């Protein structure tokens, strides 16, 4: 299955971003938090731009604005001044300090700098979470999970056991997080959902404008996570060293249910079943009906979907969920790709792609040049992933169903709903309709060429 061919030295059109990017998103899911990036000014600005264009929200992230002097003599003064100013401007309830390539390479000890700073300023009550996120150290996905783990580590309280359930979510749309919260609500689950950027990165229009948006997981709730009855983490592809749920299990004995994103019938069932088992609550009628409607949708669309040959790319957790959903619906994944290295994803795909009709190209540590090449080779007819996949549309005419982060060339990335029975139904409709649009757009001329002009194609060759 895996066919990363020869080693390449140049990445041609990246399929991933860098660690601090993911870290910012994690912190956006914490109540009243602000982030400062320890590095040169550009890192913070580029990431802000990237996030702001996807979510259409103001994204204020500070920078320690390291200059030449700071690079040579150490950036401690810059970081301290940055923290001073950030606190003055935003009065945050928690500060995330993320490093960059530059800070790591010059050997900045941010744990020490920040703890000294807080002592000197008499701010020992202000939680500051320092996370080492060099851009060369991993992808944005890894930065995301690592930041979550560090936030829990820093805030873990001494409070005893409680009966709540931790729900740890990967990078999803705010609409998806809201849908998961709704499912938890209708299942009557007392939970701590973390991180929750469903409001902070998708806020309603209201006056007056607040520099630090409302919403986010409450600090007091995060502090309770080590005492929870169980953790459900949607992070089957997260490495053990960065898994927040794994950390809660190994250090605090919180049983971990590591599940895929609830997309598709099987994975949503798994989520709902787990909730049912953990709480003893029944699945309510409205959720059952949603499940029934999803089945109805799957049946209605199955023949259209059978024509789909998909190229799926993006963050490992999303890729796995989409591949599973494709497989349930007879859409054949022909190229499955992620920009980083993910051993867990490789393992998971091995077991689920075995039954595929043809050869599946699995590409990790890949780029869009390679994804394009393999997509063309395997006659993919639908791409599913973030908006950088527009390159596949432009160059190879493969239509793109936008999913994940970032989406820069369309509006509403924050409002895309794809999880749960309801979200999966909507996701599937987007896929099916894209296949149909393509078919309706081309079948007349295709048939004309094939049968009227008789270009000599053997009709049997088109069978799969």
């Amino acid at each position: 299955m895996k066919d990363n061919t020869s080693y390449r030295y140049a990445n041609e059109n990246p399929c991933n971003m860098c660690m601090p990017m993911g870290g910012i998103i994690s912190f956006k899911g914490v109540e009243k938090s602000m982030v400062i990036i320890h590095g040169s000014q550009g890192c913070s600005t580029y990431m802000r731009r990237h996030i702001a264009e996807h979510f259409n929200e103001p994204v204020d992230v500070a920078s320690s604005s390291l200059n030449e002097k700071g690079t040579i003599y150490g950036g401690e003064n810059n970081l301290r001044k940055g923290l001073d100013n950030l606190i003055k401007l935003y009065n945050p309830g928690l500060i995330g300090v993320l490093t960059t390539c530059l800070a790591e390479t010059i050997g900045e000890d941010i744990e020490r700098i920040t703890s000294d700073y807080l002592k000197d300023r008499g701010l020992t009550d202000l939680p500051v979470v320092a996370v080492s996120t060099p851009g060369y150290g991993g992808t944005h996905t890894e930065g995301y999970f690592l930041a979550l783990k560090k936030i829990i580590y820093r805030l873990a309280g001494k409070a005893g056991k409680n009966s709540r359930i931790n729900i740890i979510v990967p990078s999803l749309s705010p609409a998806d997080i809201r849908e998961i919260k709704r499912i938890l609500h209708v299942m009557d689950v007392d939970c701590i959902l973390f991180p929750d950027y469903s409001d902070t990165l998708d806020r309603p229009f209201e006056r007056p404008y607040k520099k630090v948006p409302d919403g986010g997981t409450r600090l007091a709730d995060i502090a309770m996570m080590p005492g929870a009855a169980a953790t459900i983490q949607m992070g089957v592809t997260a490495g053990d060293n960065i898994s927040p749920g794994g950390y809660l299990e190994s250090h605090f004995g919180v049983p971990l249910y590591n599940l895929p994103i609830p997309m598709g019938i099987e994975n949503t069932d798994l989520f709902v079943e787990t909730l049912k088992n953990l709480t003893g609550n029944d699945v309510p009628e409205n959720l059952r009906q949603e499940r029934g409607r999803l089945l109805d949708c799957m049946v209605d669309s199955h023949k259209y979907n059978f024509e789909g040959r998909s190229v799926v790319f993006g963050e490992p957790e999303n890729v796995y969920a989409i591949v599973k959903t494709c497989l349930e619906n007879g859409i054949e994944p022909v190229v499955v790709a992620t920009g980083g290295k993910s051993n867990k994803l490789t393992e998971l795909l091995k077991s689920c792609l075995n039954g595929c009709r043809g050869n599946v190209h699995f590409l990790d540590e890949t780029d869009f040049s390679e994804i394009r090449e393999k997509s063309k080779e395997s006659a993919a007819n639908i791409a599913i992933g973030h908006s950088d996949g527009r390159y596949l549309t432009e160059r190879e005419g493969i239509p793109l169903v936008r999913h994940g982060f970032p989406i820069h060339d369309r509006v509403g990335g924050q409002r895309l709903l794809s999880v749960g029975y309801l979200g999966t139904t909507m996701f599937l409709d987007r896929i099916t309709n894209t296949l149909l649009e393509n078919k309706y757009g081309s079948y007349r001329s295709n048939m004309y060429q094939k049968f009227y002009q008789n270009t000599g194609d053997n009709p049997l060759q088109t069978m799969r």
Partner: protein
Amino acid sequence: MEEMEVVLLTGLPIEERRDFILTKGKQKRQLKCDADSVAGSVSQRACVYCGARVVLNPVTDAVHLVHGPIGCASYTWDIRGSLSSGADLYRNSFSTDLKEHDIIFGGEKKLARAIDELVRKYRPKLVFVYSTCIVGVIGDDLEAVCKAASGKHGIEVIPVQSSGFIGNKSAGYRAACDALMRLIEPGEKKYVIKSKNINYLGDFNLAGEAWIIKRYLSRMGVDINVVFTGDSSYAALKKAAGASLNIIQCAGSMIYLASRMEENYGIPYMNVSFVGIEDTSNSLRNIAKAFNDPEMAYKAEQLIEHETALVKPAIQRYREKLEGKKAAVYVGGGFKAVSLIKQFKEIGIDVVMIGTQTGRPEDYRRIGDLVDDGTVILDDANPAELEKFMLEKGADLLVGGVKERPLAYKLGIAFIDHNHNRKHPLSGFIGAVNFAEEVYATVCSPVWNYI
């Protein structure tokens, strides 16, 4: 006026930022600019690499290879709307994708191999290799690797010294200009200098803007030798020394190149701006004047008259709807800010707040001359300041880039995208109509009635 300043600036939490902000009035304090950003202030600026990439990226047939970790290439892949009439290699983002191992052992070998790989695959005549923060720190010898690769492949491989921490975005412009200077061949003897052949500096052909200007000039009998760098190519840039005049639009990024070309090749330069009817008209007139050619001047007048007549009625209609509105401006460079003040006047709008990321002292002097008393002028602003001054000055709209847009919208303020990823031209006469139309579309939208 003194009082007004006190009132406005008291609400600024960061003391150090005060020197970068002033209210136009009686006092003649010089605005501080072109300095490092204040740590923690949430500056809207990017880095040296960004400045270099912005300027060089429109070179259409070059390989743009970022020597560094993946992020720098990822965040800059095809994000700008420079158009090409030929090659499209520039729309790719290549990276050496440095990993931990490379940081420890050095990235030179990987860079050399990456160049080999890309040259073999794309057969370019020109490769730009951008340095990023860590390259500056781990001490890879970019010059040596590029020189060796150049010799090996018989093409030009030019290092761009754009490590992020060595300054601000302006330092990146300089790095880009240095790279361009290395490309230009000393021309006088090699190329026949045509008397009416000019270089056009500081237009990146966003939505075809350089093409619009090229057509205007051609109607006046002036040929464009090469545009820096919108829709430019290796071959065209090589011949840059064969021009008799350099006209510069985006002075912030290109004045350095222009002065070096004057020094090395004796090509005089003049500033122009094709933003707004007034500036466009004056620039065309000034070009004709520079050639001291009455026939050209006549053609320029004809063109101005003809084009103005075409757009004036539409602009007048918009003006009637927009008269009396107040604008805030926060853009990258000085030339755009200066021209926007005049362009807003053309549609009856006053600028009440104006700032730039990388304006130079002379830009701020011009701005100060053009705006009314009470206008807030600020350098290297942040969201808190933009919010404060837009609200205090009662701005109806903001002109800015991607990061500023959601802030304006959240404040219930209209917004004009004056950035590098826009999809319609804002240059020349046609651009003036587009601008007025965009202002109208956003300021007079019915959505504001509901918030």
